[in-house]
């Protein structure tokens, strides 16, 4: 390390990156990583608070309002409480994997934020393959969950781990296909580039793609109606049933980090990211970004407050029989539009795509047919 630091780092700094990074590569990196971590943790606490308050409104309750003004410090109290709990490892657990699992789960979820543009160019790294990086990294999280499920030596956890593997792997495919539609329109894989290309939000240009991505990502982060892996009515708490204390806190944080990640990705891909009337002030785009993120999360909460849970075979069937064909059709249509009518006004395409989405959903609604169909996973 000393040799590396003394010789190679300055070389890197001065030669390769000096021009791009005004404060020097490493200081830039460290500062921004710290900012990101703080951002993620604060956002997670904000999300926890927001979810609890908002869902209680749907359930005609008040929600946590005791600690601090409007109960704002409730998440802080929860964190303190959870951290001072005893860390219990089951006797027959695979101790090493049991320890590594939460770290394995949370690291990729935080890594996603490296390429999220909070403002024009304000990302940790403006990768030119940003979206590809996200797709690659975000699916590593499930390895942690599977490790947790396996190492806990608990049958509920094992069932949950099996469910999460089947579910997340299936939903990766329609998810990626839906993203390609956006990429085709934007003509770039860079997250910042995609935002810059959105003169009208892609939710209008890609209504079907948005729907597929939204549903798929809800399955990916295991929210209702796809929250099979922690279906408390069936397998109690799922993969993290044998976790307590700090390790459980990491899983809990992971759950919300993934929710934030998905909300930010949806905001970036479909809702125009940081774009919005800025009135010439430098902070406004970040605010726009946050408002959109919370709006997306509000919809997710709304869905959670309303819907029951699907069964495992129905979840799998939904991915393969409903989302995947739709995603492929969407991709073909988008490709055709980009290749054959590149000069056509965007608003015409918006109209065509909205109508097409409605027709396709109606046509595929036979999936919800209830007469005696046994969909085997």
């Amino acid at each position, binding site marked *: 390390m000393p040799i590396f630091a003394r010789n190679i780092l300055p070389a890197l700094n001065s030669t390769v990156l000096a021009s791009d990074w005004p404060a020097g590569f490493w200081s830039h990196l460290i500062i921004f990583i710290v900012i990101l971590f703080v951002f993620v943790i604060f956002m997670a606490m904000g999300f926890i608070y927001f979810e609890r308050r908002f*869902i209680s409104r*749907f*359930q*005609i*309750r008040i929600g946590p309002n005791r600690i601090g003004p409007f109960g704002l410090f409730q998440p802080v109290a929860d964190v303190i409480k959870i951290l001072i709990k005893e860390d219990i490892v089951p006797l027959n657990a695979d101790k090493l994997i049991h320890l590594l699992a939460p770290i394995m789960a949370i690291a990729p979820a935080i890594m996603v934020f490296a390429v999220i543009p909070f403002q024009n160019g304000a990302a940790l790294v403006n990768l030119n393959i940003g979206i590809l990086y996200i797709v690659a990294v975000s699916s590593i999280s499930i390895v942690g969950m599977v490790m947790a499920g396996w190492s806990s030596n608990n*049958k*509920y956890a094992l*069932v949950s781990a*099996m469910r999460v593997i089947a579910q997340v792997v299936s939903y990766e495919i329609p998810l990626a296909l839906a993203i390609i539609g956006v990429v085709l329109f934007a003509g770039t894989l860079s997250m910042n580039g995609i935002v810059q290309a959105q003169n009208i939000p892609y939710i209008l240009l890609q209504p079907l793609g948005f729907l597929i991505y939204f549903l798929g990502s809800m399955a990916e982060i295991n929210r*209702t*109606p796809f*929250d099979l892996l922690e*279906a*408390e*009515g*069936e*397998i*109690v708490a799922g993969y993290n049933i044998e976790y307590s204390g700090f390790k459980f806190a990491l899983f809990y944080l992971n759950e919300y980090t993934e929710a934030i990640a998905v909300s930010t990705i949806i905001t970036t891909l479909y809702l125009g990211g940081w774009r919005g009337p800025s009135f010439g002030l430098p902070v406004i785009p970040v605010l726009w970004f946050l408002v959109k993120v919370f709006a997306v999360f509000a919809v997710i909460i709304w869905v*959670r*407050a*309303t*819907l*029951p*849970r*699907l*069964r*495992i*075979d*129905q979840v799998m069937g939904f991915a393969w029989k409903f989302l995947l064909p739709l995603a492929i059709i969407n991709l073909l249509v988008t490709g055709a539009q980009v290749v054959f009518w590149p000069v056509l006004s965007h608003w015409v395409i918006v109209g065509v795509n909205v109508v097409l989405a409605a027709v396709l959903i109606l046509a595929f609604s036979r999936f*919800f047919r*209830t*007469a*005696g169909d046994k969909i085997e996973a």
Partner: protein
Amino acid sequence: MSLKTETFLVNAGPQHPSTHGVFRMRFILDGEVIQDVEPVFGYLHRGIEKLSEGLTYSQDMVFTDRLDYLASMTNNEAYAVAVEKLAGIQVPERAEYLRVIMAELMRISSHLMGVGFLTNDIGAFLTPLLYMYREREKILDLFDMVCGQRLTYNYMRIGGVSQDIPDEFIPALKKFIDTLPKFIEEYEQLLKTNEILLIRTKNVGILTKEAAINYSTAGPVLRASGVKWDIRKAEPYSVYSRFNFEIPTGTKGDVYDRYRIKIEEMLQSIEIIKQAMAQLPQGDIMAKVPRVLRPPKGEAYGRIEGPKGELGFYLVSDGATNPYRLHIRPPSLLNLSPLRELAIGVKIADAMAIFGSIDICMGEVDR
């Protein structure tokens, strides 16, 4: 190619989020599919039948509150009906009408809980349940007003009811009955056509008509399977013969039918309460019953239609102040008997839906 697999045993309960109390199911699972299930209970066994033998007839009333604690009023009524049959007591008109009003309110409340917990079991995060709690709370308010408790009412007495209703009861009841259909309509919008609810409940856990009869199921479970059997019509007790109401029946006997039956029955109960309110006579609320009741030697079986099915008390008297034998026909326990047959071959999630749709109360199962 075949993989070598093996089944494994999973315990759901006694502490499990969707067992409605301390109930345990031992699943033998092949992956997600249930190969065998054995219901295990007795965790809440308090020996009420034995305890009752040691106390007087009027004191036993308080134990019936603790049977099905979501429907204490009807338990009270069933016991009172049985003892009255044994001792040959004629109940005054007004008391009968009050009993009908209370029993139907209790039925609405119990069915609200049944539907709410069913949606909870199939994964709706508390929302429909909490909406239904709201309506149940209004009913509990009314009960509280009449008898001073929210859960263990101890309202019915042998030969009548304990206290007359206060003046503000009827206006409050009217208000509640008028607004309830609106809220039920809201639940219908929330649940009736919800696609996810449909695919989770339709064609799941089909209990055929023959099986339902053979397994001695009762109440909504039996009616959902298409058997038109309701004690209120089959053997009208109290003043039920004076009211116009329908007995809703299902066609298939799946989870969805069991859910629909409960909603339909609530609407019928509203009709009964409206008629009972209109006909409510003035007069006594208690028959002349000796302070220490000594029914003649003999036995009697009194039954009513409880929210969960036929609830009956089989009493044997040897002429003393205590019952010689008191047996409870628990609808919850008997409705559980088809559980094993229904659950074999389905996935865990469906088993929970089936279990939720049977709508049991552990206080009554274990007694």
